[in-house]
């Protein structure tokens, strides 16, 4: 009796969607309980830090806290634009992003087209096993391996020595930082990058190849006129998503390849923010840098995700 009464009262006092939500909670309350830890996680680790970004508009000090630190408006954003260090790291980030898109992105495509031509399955599996391994190693380890190979007495300098050339420490040379970035990315991730392409290739109708073979098409023209064209939607989707994450170059990779001698070319947003923001405690200014980066990231992701959805039905991230 009393239950009926309250539900009638609720019906009168609240808009319909709210009453149905309350009914939904009543009926499926365990669902609401289940999502609690997850909701709390995103609140604590994603949304509260986002709110904390207001310190970019303050002269924040840890002792005063957000409530008592003075507000300074766009001071840090104005400083950022005229700051030579900022231009340098912005340029470095763009150049490495460009390297990622132009030089690193296409490699898995070629690799998977090639892997698909290996007809001996055991051999194919062995090659795949070998090229996938580096993907699972941390950047600390990969950094360690690279410094080992290119260090004094490393493989690289031994080979140079064999040809009568002097040893050089390329990890300390500015001109070598970008090539090392590109090569280390390829070594670590290109093999693994073939997984999605190989899956797409295995989905191609074998009848297409059979009729092409009957028409006398060579293996190369079968790749050129069947496999590659049918792979283009996948490539395009992954390409657009990769441009969407243009500025995400990976703190761990760059940080583990960087030496103080290569800051001028290798310092990017992420490493700069870590060094100046966290180690030197210039909180407000580096938060402004971070907001700038996130905003550009947002624009890139939104626009290229839209494009990705346009090109294939479920190409985008959402």
């Amino acid at each position: 009796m009393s239950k009926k009464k309250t539900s009638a009262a609720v019906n009168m006092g609240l808009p319909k969607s709210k009453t149905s939500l309350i009914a939904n909670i009543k009926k499926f309350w365990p669902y609401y309980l289940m999502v609690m830890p997850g909701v709390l996680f995103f609140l604590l680790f994603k949304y509260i830090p986002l709110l904390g970004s207001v310190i970019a508009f303050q002269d924040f000090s840890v002792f005063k806290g957000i409530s008592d630190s003075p507000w300074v408006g766009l001071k840090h954003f104005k400083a950022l634009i005229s700051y030579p260090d900022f231009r340098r790291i912005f340029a470095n980030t763009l150049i490495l992003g460009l390297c990622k898109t132009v030089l690193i992105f296409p490699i898995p495509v070629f690799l998977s087209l090639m892997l698909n031509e290996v007809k001996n399955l055991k051999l194919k599996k062995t090659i795949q096993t070998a090229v996938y391994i580096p993907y699972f190693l941390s950047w600390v380890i990969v950094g360690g391996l690279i410094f080992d190979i290119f260090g004094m007495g490393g493989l690289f300098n031994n080979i140079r020595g064999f040809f009568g050339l002097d040893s050089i420490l390329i990890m300390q040379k500015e001109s070598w930082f970008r090539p090392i970035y590109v090569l280390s990315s390829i070594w670590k991730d290109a093999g693994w990058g073939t997984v999605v392409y190989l899956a797409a290739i295995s989905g191609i109708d074998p009848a297409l190849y059979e009729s092409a073979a009957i028409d006398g098409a060579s293996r190369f023209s079968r790749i050129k006129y069947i496999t590659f064209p049918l792979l283009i939607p996948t490539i395009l989707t992954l390409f657009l998503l990769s441009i969407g994450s243009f500025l995400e170059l990976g703190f761990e990779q760059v940080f583990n390849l960087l030496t103080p001698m290569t800051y001028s070319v290798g310092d990017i947003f992420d490493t700069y923010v870590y060094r100046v923001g966290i180690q030197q405690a210039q909180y407000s200014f580096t938060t402004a840098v971070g907001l700038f980066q996130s905003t550009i990231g947002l624009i890139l992701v939104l626009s290229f995700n839209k494009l990705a959805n346009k090109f294939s039905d479920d190409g985008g991230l959402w």
Partner: protein
Amino acid sequence: MTESIKDKAFQGAITFILCILGIIALIPLLTVIARSFSSKAAADMNIINLWPVGFTLASWKYILSDPGLWKAFFISLSTTIIGTVLALAVTSLMAYPLSKSNFKLGQILMLYVIMTMIFKAPVVPYFLTVKGMGLFNNPLVLILPHILSAYNLAIMRTFFKQFPAEVEEAAMIDGCGYFQMLYKIVIPSSKAVLTTVGLFYAVTMWNQFQHPIMFIQKTGLFPLQLKIRQLINGGSDFANIAAVANVNYTESTLSAATVVFAIIPIIAIYPWLQKYFAKGAMLGSVKG
């Protein structure tokens, strides 16, 4: 299908190139293994390439008797195991209601999750927030920030969506509650996706570097990756250790042994990694 000689040559050439690439992919590993088993004299003469020169276990004996390295190893191992279990619990708890169409908050919550992927909070306020929670120099910082990822949540949700509704309805009639449903019926029949997502989390936590370097400053709390970076970085302890006379290792052979030490666990579970990560890459491309 008859293959022309030209086609056979084409395939042969490609196979050959791929074999070379496969070997190149392994060379960095081979050379570091070789160095870890080489003698001081060989390291000083710069003659170690792909094979140990003056085979010795001196470097290995030294690093394996270093309690600091083992401590870091166990910190990484325990946080990875606890973290993975916790992550699977939190992720499946959230993914299950999100896979149900009769859960009214589902749409809004998905938006709530996706928003965090497209606009990322800057690192500095993140650092200050997490530090403010008391996680600075606290091993929990190796676990808590990693117990949920939007990507893994999406994979699990997709998988749960495919669970046959009839089974759940039948269980419901038998008086099964929602929590029981998840833990006694849905989870036991989702082993493949749990293994995949579990391995994703485990590798992330085992390999993590950014959180440790931001939040852990006490050397006694260093996880493995941070310890290794400290050990192999130029001007580190190894330089002093190896400067002593009468030892058969150098800074570079000790570094090499440390790097190999950290690779071994990954190689040990590599067959599973390869199998389930490939599955995950497929699942990830299916959205629901």
